[in-house]
């Protein structure tokens, strides 16, 4: 069993004409929390979908546990997905099921456990995200932050080997934020899972990550342990960590010069 869970090698991917990754490589170590940070719209969600095999790269390899995800057959891909799990940015709860049934869904699909056992597992998962009392609510009755936590409970329902969290902290109050930060860390340490956390919340991420990748401009612009990154001399890295609007990383989506567009409003 190799030490590396996800190995991305020379990945290139584009959406239509829009090149999103250009020859990018990164490694996720087994049993560690790896964070991916980067400006909005840079393709972090896209990267998670590439790892999950929902999108195919135009070039490069994505090795998950030694298997090249883009090259897998459909059946093998579904088999590989049983070992991973993803918390979607939107939550992606099934709207026609209650919170309880949402969390029970993957268990019912992939195991033949009895309902009483499923009941225990689901309640434990809901308890860990603080939503045991909300088990009978429908997703439409949850707030955005609660929906995210319910989705988190569903993502960890089957104790996967790899969990990908897409913006787990967005929309959480300081208390549930703290709970989720601790939960991610605990799951990782206690169960030995591998975690990939995508987030903008620099402080939270730096506090739990074992290793951080900073992604911008179609590739990795800096990586290392949080400590190493703080010491990094690169202007790009420092700008992102300190949150300055315009520095080496452009805050604006690429556009024509501002003055030109204002002077010539219609084109």
């Amino acid at each position, binding site marked *: 069993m190799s030490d590396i869970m996800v190995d991305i090698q020379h990945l290139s991917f584009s959406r239509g004409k829009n090149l999103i990754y250009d020859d990018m490589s990164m490694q996720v170590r087994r049993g560690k929390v790896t964070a991916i940070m980067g400006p909005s719209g840079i393709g972090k969600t896209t990267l998670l*979908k590439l790892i*999950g095999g*929902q999108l195919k790269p135009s070039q490069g390899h994505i090795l998950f546990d030694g298997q090249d995800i883009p090259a897998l057959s459909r059946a093998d891909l*579904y*088999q590989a*997905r*049983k070992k*991973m*799990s*993803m918390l*979607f940015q*939107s939550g*992606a*709860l*099934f*709207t026609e099921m209650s919170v309880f049934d949402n969390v029970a*869904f*993957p268990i019912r*699909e*992939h195991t033949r456990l009895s309902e009483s056992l499923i009941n225990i597992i689901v309640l434990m998962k809901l308890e860990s995200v603080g939503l045991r009392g909300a088990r009978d609510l429908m997703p439409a009755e949850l707030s955005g932050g609660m929906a995210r936590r319910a989705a988190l409970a569903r993502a960890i329902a089957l104790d996967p080997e790899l969990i990908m969290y897409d913006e787990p902290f967005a929309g959480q109050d300081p208390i549930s934020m703290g709970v989720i930060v601790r939960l991610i860390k605990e799951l990782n340490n206690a169960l030995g899972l591998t975690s990939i956390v995508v987030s903008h919340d620099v402080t939270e991420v730096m506090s739990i990550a074992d290793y951080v990748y900073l992604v911008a401009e179609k590739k990795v612009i800096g990586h290392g342990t949080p400590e190493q990154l703080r010491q990094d001399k690169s202007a790009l890295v420092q700008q992102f960590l300190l949150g300055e609007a315009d520095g080496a990383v452009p805050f604006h989506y690429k556009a024509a010069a501002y003055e030109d567009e204002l002077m010539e409003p219609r084109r």
Partner: protein
Amino acid sequence: MITEKLQNLGRSTIDNLAGFGRSGVMLFGALVGKPNFRKGWPLLVKQLYVIGVLSLLIILVSGLFIGMVLALQGYTVLVKFGAEGMLGPLVALSLLRELGPVVTALLFAGRAGSALTAEIGLMKATEQLSGMEMMAVDPLRRIIAPRFWAGVISMPLLAMVFTAVGILGGHLIGVNWLGVDGGSYWSTMQANVDLYQDVVNGLIKSVVFAVIVIWIALHKGFDAVPTSEGISRATTQTVVTASLTVLGFDFILTALMFGG
């Protein structure tokens, strides 16, 4: 100018064919593979309820009214030739061969087809389908297949109900109101309706229409642009495309079954 038009025509034909091919693969993917009765059965029952049972009311009401109108219109013509005794076969044959399958399919496209497209489009827009895929559950098997089978099972049944209620509606108007002899309404019907030629052919039609309507509805939902505008467009397209396709196929099937 003309070459440009031809080019556009060619391109849209190719796009349509590509869409057709994609949906063919999709449908195929949903239907092959070993069925799982333990998990599949409850899903199918739920969809039979949503797609079939909930469409029952509109089918009952429409069937009744179409039958009554048929009797009223038929009577005014037949009575001129003193042939009002043939009202029974007129109503029954029109419903069995044409109106039952066709009108049911049109109503079904509006009632159940549009709802299916919107439901699946929304599931796509809210990443529920992606989420399912990431949980290693195939949305084609889990979402598409039960809806497809529920539609194919329930629509012919709905068409039968439509026809039966229509015949009763014809009786209500023809016999109870206009005074056609009740015995001859039923006996001429029995003498003139052929089990194979009329009943079975009508059933075949409605099975074909069911496949068409459900297939289009599921495909449009699955292929919808995942935005509110995209979903509303897909819903409209389902009703329009499914209705026109049903009418086109009705002509072809009628020519094949009753033309010779």
